[in-house]
């Protein structure tokens, strides 16, 4: 990349930071080396430079030094530019380094590394420890980056989504309120514009790109919204608990016996085992996975569901 551009931007930052007063474009051009001699070419380049500084998060103020000033000027307000004082004890710095590792190989890896760099520049001694005894990681997901941006900038989005069991994906329009990772999977919750209702989507079921469908600031998150709660409700099992009576061949079905509330020998090498469950669709699949080692006695609908599963294998 261009060394001259870096030099120019660096000088521009130093120039705007060291001045208490607003500097006009003409004054900036006189002070900062590297701008072209034609005023129009300078203006164009200066506009791009300002945009670049803003993208880096450098605050740029526009204003005049007094009521008599005719031309607007620019400056970088120091209080807004500077990272406030932060001092971390060694154990706190260790925790911070560990936190930055959570995003490794995921979308915010660069952001976490950038934050750590600034904190180190502020004097924090956050060194990579080789043996922290724990390695936490978050999974990456293609749709995460654009949705994070959408939540950050309060922009509505549109994407193609394949709901569970659907043979075709559908286009959805969402005002995203927040992103949640639950049991290792990413979800986005918000207001579905077409259905005019609160909806939760799993990121792994989004197909193709996530596109912004409105301007920044267009999304209003209702007061008191708890996105964790929304995702938890969407994801949770039906609460009603039932009890199944199962015949399990002796010495097998250990995964079911772990959850048993009652167990007695039933003769002929079979045991009668009482197992509580709440999600009958899931439980039927679970029982089917044990094949001929487990037979459902009761309830009848669970028994039928297992028989349907097994017939499905042969279909």
């Amino acid at each position, binding site marked *: 990349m261009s060394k001259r551009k870096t*030099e120019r*931007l*660096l000088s521009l*930052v*130093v120039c705007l*930071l*060291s001045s208490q007063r607003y500097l006009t474009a003409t004054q900036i051009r006189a002070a*900062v080396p590297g701008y072209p001699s034609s005023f129009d070419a300078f203006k164009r380049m200066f506009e791009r430079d300002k945009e670049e500084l803003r993208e*880096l*998060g450098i605050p740029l103020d526009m204003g005049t030094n007094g009521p008599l000033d005719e031309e607007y000027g620019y400056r970088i307000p120091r209080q807004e*530019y500077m*990272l406030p*004082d*932060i001092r971390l*004890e060694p154990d*706190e710095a*260790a*925790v911070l380094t560990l936190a930055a590792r*959570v*995003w490794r190989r995921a979308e*915010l*890896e660069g*952001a*976490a*590394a*950038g*934050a750590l*760099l*600034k904190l180190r*520049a*502020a004097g924090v001694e956050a060194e990579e420890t080789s043996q*922290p*005894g*724990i*390695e*936490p*990681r*978050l*999974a990456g997901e293609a749709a995460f980056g654009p949705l994070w941006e959408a939540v*950050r900038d309060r922009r509505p989005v549109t994407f193609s989504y394949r709901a*569970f*069991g659907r*043979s075709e994906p559908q286009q959805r329009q969402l005002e995203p309120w*927040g992103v949640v*990772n639950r049991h290792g999977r990413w979800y986005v919750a918000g207001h579905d514009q077409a259905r005019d209702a609160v909806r939760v989507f799993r990121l792994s*079921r989004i197909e193709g790109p996530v596109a912004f469908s409105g301007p920044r600031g267009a999304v209003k998150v209702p007061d008191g919204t708890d996105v964790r709660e929304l995702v938890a409700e969407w994801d949770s099992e039906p609460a009603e608990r039932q009890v199944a009576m199962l015949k399990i061949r002796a010495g097998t*079905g250990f995964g079911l016996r*772990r959850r048993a509330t009652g167990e007695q020998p039933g003769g002929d090498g079979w045991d009668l085992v009482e197992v509580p469950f709440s999600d009958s669709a899931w439980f039927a*699949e679970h029982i*089917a*996975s*044990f*094949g*001929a080692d487990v037979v459902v006695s009761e309830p009848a609908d669970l*028994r039928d569901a297992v028989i349907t599963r097994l*017939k*499905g*294998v*042969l*279909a």
Partner: protein
Amino acid sequence: MTSPRPVTTSSDRLQRLLALVPYVVSRKVVGLTDTAAAFGVSERELVDDLNMLWCVELRAPDPYCPIDLSYEGGEIVVSQAEQMERPLRLGVDEASALLVALRMLAELGPVAPVPGLAEGSALSRTIAKLEEAAGEAGALSAQVAVQVDKNAEENVAAQVREALASRRRIHLSYYVPTRDEATERDVDPMRLLVVEGRTYLEGWCRSAEAVRLFRLDRVLGIEVLALPAEVPEEADPRDVDRGLFQPSPEDARVVIELSPYGRWVAEYYPCEEVTDIGEGWLRVVLRTPDSEWVRRLALRLGEDGRVVEPAELAADVRREAAAALARYGSGAGHPSVPAGEVS
């Protein structure tokens, strides 16, 4: 910053230059070598950066050089830095990335062996300090949350923590779902992994004589032994960033077709290939050393999954399903489809 950056853009470099001055100023004197390592650049690149900073010149109203520094004898000293002695404040992405991660660690508290995490005090202090330093930039982190499974029993977590802290061997009674059995083994604990929302103990399994992962929610019983953990030299910790489960080329190749209701398999297990075969169906290729696991998966899937390869395994699954149906007696014993359609 040990991760290599593939492309250095001028804005990357500008950020580094803006961080470099305060990095030196806050430490008064720093070595060239250490600083290069801290910024993930070569010493040569670092010297280029220092020269660029030193050469900054403002021409008006009076020409002057705002930054004065030296790096003689391999030691960097900044003697004049004007308004550059503090780093730029944290951006929204930066502050929120760290805060989301810190709050995730706070959720882990009870299982974590790191002293600061176990009590949570260092964590809550760090979160408070970072929130204060970040100001508004940290607000987004309230809209992004990570919840961690707490399926492991309190007692298991406590014992694992104790074993890791005191570096002692443990005896594990561990449930292996693919074989549907409880196994007994001695393990020398290495560390905890928290990946995709699950907590695993990584340790040297003395029965397998290999590094193994144990999901804490599958631990049936645990005892911390009065013996020191002896993790041998050859015990290689897993490279978490490459994925926990690396299929080996010797593993059997399994091809399964999945209905729209069976597609979750492709989300849950690492697949070598995923092909859309129309009407919402997928064909996936998996590698596994464990055909028993595939057999159970196929029985679970029912009509939502079809094992295509290997053929013996497909036949085995059908045999098992037929045997299971036979246990439900007549009426359920045979598939209710015309005989001609059963291949």
